């Protein structure tokens, strides 16, 4: 541990001393010296949702992280230190995210934070994390703003985002289905961002937007929108509908048998959201970052490890959310190992620009962490529902894979401004 660094405790004390408190009561001693010895466990705060809209995905995310932690602990930990984790429910609510982050950092003394499905929660956590210099991994929120205007020096984004998926899908679909498009957009920030990415691409490749139907968040009945789509009769409908709204839409499209005509382009479908549902719920073409039946080395072994560790889980095979949680945690621990220290700045520098081989990622292309946006640039897969299958776990048919270079989110790179290293408090966890 580097002697010349401020520890976070000292930092907090300095800030406090600057305030009224300091002048009235003076700095006080804490009974625990933070991370003084190298034999102390490395504490990781898991901030995934356990209640609210994303409770189910949050649980999957968490299982991924815990498998990675268990594997590292079995090898003797990192830098000779055991890895410990604490989980607190972020309730799919940003305000709770802030509080949980404060608690994790100040009370649990977590040196690293990881976990998110909702972009609002991820934002809230990363603001607190940045203020304290604590590295935070956003595992599963696919909002383009996460690595765009809301990026932070301490935050790393592990999922593919809306823009990546749109890029993977649009050109292909114009060629295949036609250029008359209707956009079905959830009327909130994520929906608008995703729709904007689609519109730009449509212009670029010669498609036209016939109509954009905005549906408010919380819509449970899509019949008027589906009637309008029938009346307009487009070639393709690009849907940016999220959360529970998407689940209702899925159900209603399936009932109408409208899943194949017109052609539907959906954003990412998270595995925990679709697992166990009838296949006609998986209408149209959608994106994913990983699938458990990819024909690549290591995948079968990964699935077997999942099944051995979670024999009682309803979800019999791992999906993209689990995968992201696992990969993020694994890479966090490897970065600490490579850095040879838990110093946050050293670990950040180790992560920025880091290349991950296709083999390690169990994907088709090499991936890397973009040093300018902190988003992992990775392979994107387009998939659709498997038509003939007896295996009820095997729901996706992977249509193609697209390399990270072809789906790079240039909008995010333009919007993101990372804080400087000097503005990021430094400490050893």
């Amino acid at each position, binding site marked *: 541990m580097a002697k010349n660094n401020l520890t976070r405790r000292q930092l907090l004390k300095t800030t406090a001393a600057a305030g009224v408190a300091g002048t009235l009561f003076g700095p006080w001693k804490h009974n625990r010296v933070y991370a003084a010895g190298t034999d102390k466990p490395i504490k990781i705060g898991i901030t995934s949702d356990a209640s*609210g*809209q994303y*409770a*189910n995905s949050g*649980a999957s995310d968490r299982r991924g992280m815990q498998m990675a932690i268990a594997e590292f602990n079995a090898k003797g930990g990192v830098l000779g230190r055991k890895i410990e984790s604490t989980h607190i429910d972020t309730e799919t609510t940003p305000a709770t995210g802030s509080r949980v982050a404060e608690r994790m950092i100040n009370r649990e003394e977590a040196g690293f934070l990881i976990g998110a499905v909702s972009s609002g929660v991820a934002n809230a956590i990363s603001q607190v994390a940045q203020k304290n210099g604590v590295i935070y991994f956003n595992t599963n929120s696919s909002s383009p703003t996460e690595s765009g205007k809301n990026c932070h020096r301490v935050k790393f984004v592990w999922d593919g985002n809306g823009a990546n998926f749109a890029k993977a899908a649009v050109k292909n679909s114009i060629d295949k289905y036609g250029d008359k498009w209707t956009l079905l957009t959830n*009327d909130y920030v994520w929906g608008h961002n995703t729709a904007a990415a689609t519109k730009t691409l449509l212009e670029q490749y010669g498609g036209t937007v016939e109509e954009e*139907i*905005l*549906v*408010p968040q*919380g*819509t*449970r*009945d899509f*019949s*008027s*929108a589906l*009637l*309008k789509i*029938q*009346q307009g009769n487009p070639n393709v409908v690009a849907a940016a509908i999220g959360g*529970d709204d998407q*689940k*209702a839409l*899925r*159900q*209603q499209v399936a*009932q*109408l*048998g*409208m899943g194949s005509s017109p052609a539907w382009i959906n954003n990412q479908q998270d595995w*925990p*959201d*679709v*697992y*166990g*549902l*009838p296949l006609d*719920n998986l209408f149209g073409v959608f994106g994913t970052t990983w699938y458990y039946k990819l024909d690549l080395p290591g995948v079968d072994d990964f699935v077997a490890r999942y099944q051995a560790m979670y024999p009682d889980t*309803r*979800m019999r095979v791992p999906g993209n959310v689990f995968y992201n949680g696992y990969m993020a945690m694994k890479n966090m621990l490897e970065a600490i190992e490579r850095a040879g220290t838990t110093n946050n700045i050293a670990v950040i520098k180790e992560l920025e620009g880091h290349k991950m081989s296709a083999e390690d990622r169990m994907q088709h292309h090499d991936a890397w962490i973009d040093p300018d946006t902190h988003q992992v640039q990775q392979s994107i897969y387009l998939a659709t529902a498997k038509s003939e299958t007896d295996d009820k776990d095997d729901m996706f048919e992977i249509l193609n894979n697209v390399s990270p270079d072809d789906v790079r989110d240039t909008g995010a790179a333009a919007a993101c401004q990372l804080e400087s290293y000097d503005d990021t408090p430094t400490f050893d966890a």
Partner: protein
Amino acid sequence: MTQLVPHIFNGLTLGLLFALIALGFTLIVGVMEVINLAHGSLFALGAYFALAIIGGSWLGDTAIGEWWLALPIMPRYILALIVAPILAGLSGMVLELALRRTYGKAPLYGLLLTFGAALVIEELIRLGWGTGEQNLQLPQSISGAILLGGLIYSKYKLFAAGFAVFAIIMVWLFLEKTPYGAIIKAGAHDSEMVRALGYDLARLRLLVFGLGAGLAGLAGVIMVPIWGLRPHVGIDVVIPAFLIIVLGGIGSFWGSVIAAILVGLSVGITGAYAPAWSMMSMYILLILVVGFRARGLFGKKSALEN
């Protein structure tokens, strides 16, 4: 105009579904003057019971289990449609027993108790059935699409709307044409009188609450194939139900049915012309109506105003 007709038709079906959702809520408010905030949780509970009955996985690998799953979906679905609401009704009766302690106090306490119960039921659903999205199987004959005037409609939705009409008429007949209904209505107006006539008021309330909870469960079984099934699905129910009874006027059976259809039409038609405002339109409708008519469209004076 030809563009509009399908949307009006759609709004009408939507309104009937809203009426079904509000039915049990209206009954309990109208008769017992209790605002049942657990309505949404009982709605979800009914749907989960139906899921358990149709899926039958709790029967395990026994002979009965195998026999049950070998049956076609239709009889299983019909059984679920009957038994699941009954189970939800029984759960409602348990809740009513707890609710008794709040009788005679301000209506606020009943409302708060059911709010707490809603949290508890939702958490119990999570423990029992998990947090993930589930699917309620339907018989072939009511799933799929139907072509009407060149446009595709969901067969199931038409079935659900028809079923809503059936349920509304049955409840109305029960209240108007049976002796039980007469006693229930009498209890709503003058509980002393009912007691004086020698009826057991406690049992009457238990029955009404059970019936209301059963109707919530029934609405759950019917609506979930349209909305999808997850533990917090009930959240989407309470607000429209609330809105509808206030719009229609507390204590008025037909008031709430008409209000539901108005809400359906306003959501359906804004859905065609300004879809981004379709959800907001319900609230604007409420503020407009209640701003001018303090007790909604057909409301009478109620103890809940105090």
